[in-house]
């Protein structure tokens, strides 16, 4: 009981303070945007930090649409009903008309169907990958309010197949995370491998949080492939690869972008990753991407390596640019409609930092369009809110990762067409 009382007293005190603070800032104009991200999960927190980083840069440029931006962050706990409630609270209580999130497709989907679409709020996810969203959008049930900066799994798997073909692998075993993303990856990569004439010897699901993956890995090892394809997250990826190597599996690995992490590299050991090649949607070709990297290092004193960081940054930045383009007091649908103006392939290129945002403001104010060159490249959305992007093949190095090959958007499109 005493805990409850103390909590009540703390809340009351905090409420009183906030009323005072609110009064002091009353003359400033602040626009709130919502974010529902799994901050209680280890890999979720950096995603939220990166979104906040984009907001800070925009505020340094004087905010968007004439107002300072405040990002109200809520934790989803990776629990759909907690995430949906948080989203509803942000929309109804904080009055946001733009929502960033969520990460898991299983959380983003009920938010989309029961909160954002009914309320006319723009929802931009950094990391939800399920093909179910494309289906929903095709049926016209997203109302044009759904976007995501996570390139469809199609790009990832196509480039993975290209790596296998280029390296001359004849057979590949697949280990995939047993969730919507991993199941999609496994299905797509099998088709793409078949298209380039690579045999899939085994396709094994890896469940989260198991103490050992010996049974799963053994199944893949005994199929004796030339290489292994890993669509896993760092924690399970590390455990699975350790067992893979200790059972005598080949060091020829193809990695999805989720393993582009220092944690994975350090825990497996660089000496075992010499023949590992990863795929990712393209980064860092343009000046703006270098600007993002430099600014990120200055702020966090580390490379922006980790699942979803660049995607989260771009999600926040595109939303803020669209808010600028849509002007003051725009509705969620207005902001959603303005996204085309800030990702226009024929627009003025702008970099992903404070200076870029300032430049974009001028162009948009004079009625022009801009092309945002983000941390994941020149982001371009299709009619379903899905993003296609250039791709990069990378390998691990002492400093983190380094680029092996860059594929422009046209290269990617041409290669994907050749697989059909």
């Amino acid at each position, binding site marked *: 009981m005493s805990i409850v009382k103390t909590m009540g007293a703390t809340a009351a005190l905090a409420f009183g303070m906030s009323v005072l603070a609110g009064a002091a800032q009353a003359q400033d104009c602040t626009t709130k945007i919502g974010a529902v991200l799994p901050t209680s999960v280890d890999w979720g927190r950096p995603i939220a930090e990166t979104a906040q980083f984009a907001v800070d840069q925009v505020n340094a440029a004087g905010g968007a649409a004439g107002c300072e931006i405040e990002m109200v*962050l809520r934790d989803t706990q990776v629990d759909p009903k907690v995430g949906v409630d948080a989203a509803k609270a942000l929309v109804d209580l904080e009055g946001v008309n733009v929502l960033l999130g969520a990460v898991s497709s299983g959380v983003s989907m009920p938010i989309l169907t029961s909160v954002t*679409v009914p309320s006319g709020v723009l929802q931009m996810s950094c990391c939800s990958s399920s093909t179910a969203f494309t289906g929903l959008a095709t049926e016209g049930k997203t109302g044009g309010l759904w976007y995501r900066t996570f390139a469809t799994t199609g790009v990832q798997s196509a480039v993975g197949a290209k790596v296998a073909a280029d390296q001359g692998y004849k057979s590949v075993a697949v280990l995939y995370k047993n969730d919507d993303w991993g199941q999609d990856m496994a299905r797509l990569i099998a088709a793409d491998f078949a298209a380039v004439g690579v045999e899939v010897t085994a396709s094994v699901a890896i469940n989260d949080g198991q103490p050992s993956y010996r049974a799963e890995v053994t199944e893949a090892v005994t199929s004796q492939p030339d290489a292994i394809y890993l669509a896993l997250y760092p924690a399970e990826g590390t455990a699975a690869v350790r067992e893979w190597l200790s059972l005598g599996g080949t060091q020829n690995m193809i990695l999805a972008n989720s393993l582009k992490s220092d944690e994975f590299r350090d825990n497996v050991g660089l000496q075992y990753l010499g023949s590992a090649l990863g795929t990712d949607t393209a980064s860092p070709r343009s000046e703006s991407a270098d600007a993002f990297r430099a600014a990120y290092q200055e702020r966090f004193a580390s490379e922006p390596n980790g699942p979803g960081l660049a995607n989260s940054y771009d999600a926040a930045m595109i939303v803020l640019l669209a808010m600028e383009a849509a002007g003051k007091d725009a509705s969620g649908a207005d902001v959603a409609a303005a996204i085309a103006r800030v990702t226009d392939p024929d627009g003025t290129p702008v970099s992903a930092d404070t200076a870029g945002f300032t430049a974009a403001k001028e162009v948009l104010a004079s009625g022009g369009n801009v092309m945002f060159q983000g941390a994941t490249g020149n982001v371009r959305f299709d009619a379903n809110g899905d993003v296609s992007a250039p791709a990069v093949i990378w390998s691990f190095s002492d400093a983190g990762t380094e680029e092996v090959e860059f594929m422009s958007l046209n290269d990617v499109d041409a290669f994907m067409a050749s697989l059909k």
Partner: protein
Amino acid sequence: MIGVFSYLVFFATTASILAIAVLGLNLQWGNTGLFNGGVVAFFGAGAYGTLILGGTAQAGHLGGFGLFYPLALLGGMAAAGLMAWIVGLLTLRLRHDYLAIATFGVAVAFENLMRNAEWLAGGAKGVRGFERPLRAALGDGFIYNLFFFVVVLLILIATYMFLERLVASPFGRLLRAIREDEEAARSLGKNPARIRLMAFVTGSVILGLAGGLYGTFYAFVSPQDVLPTLTFQIWAMLIVGGAGNNRGAIFGAFLIWGAWTLSGWALSRFAPVDVQLYTGSVQFILIGSVIVGMLMWRPQGFLPERLVVSQRGKPQQMQQGE
């Protein structure tokens, strides 16, 4: 102001759905002493059953029967009941923690089945494409949410009244007799195995009802909705509210769900910016502390079970079946 009201309706809908689930568990644990550690499996069976039966056709998995909504909901409840009957036949000879472990295993198996059997329920992608009933007539906005809340509230009240009558009846007393001393009940010529199964199935059907409403509310269900966390949450609601007391079960659902959401909101609103990123973790600590505190200082819950002694002068139904 309309925003606050709209949010409260939304909150109360979720809380009422959870309250129905807690009532179902209360029949099993509070009244009969069956430690169901697999609450989420029956909840999930209701949700999946309802959406598969009532949804539009989806490529790649079962579904698209497009049944009239009340029939779909009944179908979801039947799915939960059928599963409970099979599970009950197999496990109800187990007692206490053994039953808890067995049912927990059933829940994990259920989640894994839903995650992997893509032909059945879409795998990890989940089941979508469900049209919420009467949506065409009422639109998508606040009016619909209000209407849905009223429906859920009426179902909650009906469930509560049904259970109140049930536990006050001779059958209810038999449940408590089995809970307290099975041998004694057997010595009076009762068949504890059959009664335990009946209570287990009835409670699970109520859990399935809650699950069906939950799936309807979000028009979506995926394996992420049937993780063991939900079992824990529903148990926490029952323990804090008061096991064995139906009002306690409802109160606990609103209290815990309220604390869960209010603490998230308050932390995001009032915590300093540099602590914001850690509010998710802080919230877990706060909720855990409340539950530990309850167990230490008020283990019987806020509204403890009212012990009814059968004697003259009590309401008439207490006397029957003597």
